[in-house]
């Protein structure tokens, strides 16, 4: 079983590598940061697979922390695109 889980993690690593291309190409900054988010989600999935493969449920905590904090960089980016750098893109909506 653990052999299968490790191969599944390897497969995820492959999908993360595909995501690298979009971080590299862009073209917009939003593309780069959104694909970094994809690596985050893939990384969370990998921690779950590794927790099961190693029979160590403490590894799930790493996934928990990653899932909690992975969005923060994107939030900081979105704030930086607002007019004064401290706002929110939705502020001026009707």
């Amino acid at each position, binding site marked *: 079983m*653990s*052999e299968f889980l*490790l191969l599944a993690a390897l497969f995820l690593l492959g999908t993360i590598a595909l995501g690298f291309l979009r971080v590299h190409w862009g073209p917009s900054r939003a593309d780069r940061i959104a694909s970094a988010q994809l690596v985050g989600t893939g990384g969370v999935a990998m921690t779950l697979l590794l927790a099961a*493969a*190693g029979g160590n449920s403490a590894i799930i905590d790493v996934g928990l922390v990653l899932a909690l904090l992975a969005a923060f960089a994107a939030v900081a980016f979105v704030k930086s695109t607002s007019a004064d750098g401290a706002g929110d893109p939705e502020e001026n909506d009707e």
Partner: protein
Amino acid sequence: MMATIDSALLFALTGCVLIGLGLYGFIVHAHLLRRILAFNVIGSGIFLLFGALGYLGAGQGTDPVPQALIITGIVVALSLTAFAIALVIKLAEEEKTAVLDAAKTAEDLHE
């Protein structure tokens, strides 16, 4: 099934390459934010090398003493990064640049 000693060797060698890469980035880039990135790559390379050498084998994990020192190191690296960034921002807001230019500084001194 977890990593083996062979895998640990792989991570240790990766750490060696990361140190080299970070060193290269630190030398060739003049932009200070890029130098801060390079400094962090060197740091994590050293941590990876140190931790991988303390790997004891499947099921035993990594030696707790290096682990504790690495955690300390990661936090100190973050605090130094924050300080360096505060300095760069100060430089940028006063001099409109993120590059330390030795020639320019010398000129300013003579003025």
